[in-house]
């Protein structure tokens, strides 16, 4: 049943996906309202799906698909927070496709599961997952914002008259969205990695830094830190910030993909 609700949510997110593609070429207030409502409805279905999963007692915390579903939900929640604060749906151009993609994978019914049979401290594991996913969601958003910043900067620089009528919010607003998600996400990501280390230490007795999963996660965190630092210290934005954000995003994707070949943080079909 939980899967059915998730598929309903997927249907709603599809509207958002279409919006993301359309919004790049033209502006439509009506369509952005439709996309927003569809996304909200999708979140309701998504919430029902997650709640049902949780209440059914069958929740497998370390399942890839549950994880993806949770990450998609967090990303959407972040998007909504930003919409409430800035009244703009334009981060949806990046967030909607990512959320759709994550939900799509989660809505496929095969469920590879993380091999967690010998994890002894379930509480740490749950904290690890929630923290790290919140960090990921914030990263998705700041990545989106940095791409939009680049786009808006190009439009303003090109001096094409049409750049005046664009769906994008002001450059500084995009910048704030990106920076705030970055600042918000960083502590979550850090704590997420720390709790992960606690889980690893309690389970294996040590942290294997050469394991691809750990290596990539640490790399991602390092890039994340560089982003926060360069932004805070010298106000990096625009092209340089977008480059770093893309790097962090790719590292995050690689770290996620590492679940399939890591020795200690591995998924297998259930």
């Amino acid at each position: 049943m939980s899967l059915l609700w998730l598929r309903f949510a997927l249907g709603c997110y599809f509207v958002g996906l279409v919006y993301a593609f359309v919004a790049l070429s033209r502006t439509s207030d009506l369509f952005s309202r439709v996309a927003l409502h569809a996304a909200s409805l999708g979140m309701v279905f998504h919430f029902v799906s997650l709640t049902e999963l949780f209440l059914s007692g069958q929740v497998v915390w370390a399942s890839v698909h549950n994880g993806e579903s949770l990450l998609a939900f967090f990303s959407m929640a972040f998007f909504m927070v930003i919409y409430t604060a800035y009244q703009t749906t334009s981060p949806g151009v990046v967030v909607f496709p990512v959320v759709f993609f994550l939900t799509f994978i989660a809505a496929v019914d095969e469920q590879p599961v993380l091999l967690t049979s010998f994890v002894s401290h379930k509480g740490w594991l749950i904290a690890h997952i929630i923290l790290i996913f919140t960090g990921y969601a914030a990263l998705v958003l700041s990545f989106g914002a940095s791409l939009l910043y680049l786009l808006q900067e190009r439009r303003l620089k090109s001096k094409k008259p049409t750049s005046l009528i664009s769906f994008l919010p002001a450059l500084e607003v995009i910048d704030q969205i990106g920076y705030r998600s970055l600042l918000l996400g960083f502590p979550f990501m850090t704590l997420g990695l720390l709790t992960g280390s606690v889980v690893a230490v309690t389970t294996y007795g040590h942290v294997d830094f050469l394991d691809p999963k750990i290596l990539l996660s640490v790399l991602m965190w390092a890039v994340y830190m560089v982003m926060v630092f360069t932004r805070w210290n010298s106000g990096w934005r625009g092209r340089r910030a977008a480059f770093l954000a893309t790097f962090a995003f790719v590292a995050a994707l690689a770290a996620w993909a590492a679940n399939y070949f890591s020795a200690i943080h591995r998924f297998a079909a259930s």
Partner: protein
Amino acid sequence: MRFQLIGVNHKSAPLEVRERLAIPDSRLPDTCRDLAAYPGIEEGMVISTCNRVEVVTHTVNGHADLRGFLHDHFHLKPEELDAHLYEFREKDAVRHLFRVASSLDSMVVGEAQILGQVKEAYATARAVGAVRGQLDQLFSRAFAVAKRVRSETAVGSSSVSIASVAVELAKKIFGSLQGKNVFIVGAGKMSELAARHLMAHGCGSIFVANRTYERAIGLAQKFDGQAIKFEDLYATCDRADIVITSTGAPHAIFRREHGEQFLARRKNRPMFFIDIAVPRDVSQDMAKLDGIFAYDIDDLQQAVTSHVADRRKEAERAEAIIASEVERFEARLQTLDVVPTIVSLQDHLETIRQAEIDRVRGRLGQLSPEQEIAVEALTRGIINKVMHTPITTLKSAAKESEATTVVDVVRRLFNLQVKETQAKEAQSKNAEAGTRP
């Protein structure tokens, strides 16, 4: 619908002709009175602005001699005026008026002033009693249409002066301009105007630098700002988010190295340069820096032109709204038309009369042809007497704004159903009557 409109505008007539037709505000009431008293005119009003003079009327038969009125009133010969005039009747007159009120017929499409001018003209004519029923309805509708066009299309939203384009660009960069600082380099009229616009949108402090320090002080005082010595320009410029520069320097005064310094000191927060100097004050390689947005006079001019083009695009949407509103207005007037109600009232009473005669015919026995005629005349007479007052009331109500209410009451009292076909027939009869000389 017997609306008739005649006039000249910036497209149809040169300024010299428009000048001779222009009516000062003080004389507008008298002109309206004269117009309403002119033969063949029931109601009338005059819109007179610098770009147009229009006479809008509701006539007795749809063929009033409005040209004659203009010739008489302005003492102009037909050959001086007629070639510049346009004249619209009925639906076309309604459409034209809707277009004028919605600023689609203006020189700068979408400018907001015209609606206010039409409203004033309407108020004047109404005050002297030259506008009553039909024109009242027409103008109320025209104002509603103008409002609809303004809210549903972007026809009035884009600004068209260089100063306001600069403000709009600044907003695209900074979002809110609240608390943003402005630096004026080179005190000139145009930069002052741009600064004034920016301040009106909430910008914070203003700095002024000029080669002649006294002029900088003078301008700074106007804005409650701070004058900066020209030699301190590069040391202080990074304090501003928006720089308006218009010096007479023969070379660029802002070069790449300056831009790099500013950005480093500002931690890469963007800067917006409005460069209205010719030759330009901001060098091309500085304008390429990330975080520097420099618009020269040509870029700004291009934005202005494109705004005008955007407005044209929006104007097409507005035309569609107006077309549908003209249809709606026509349909509404049709329902207001009292003729169908009168016809169905007559039919209704005639049916009753016939039914009553048939009912009593048996009791009356065989009637002679003379008696037959007498009964017919008697019953018809009664009906006509009874109908006289309601029909007169309906006819006079049609000329006033309360027509809807009266028509409604009569229909309810007699339980009349006016068929649509009947209404249309009546309409075409009206039109035929109207075309007769």
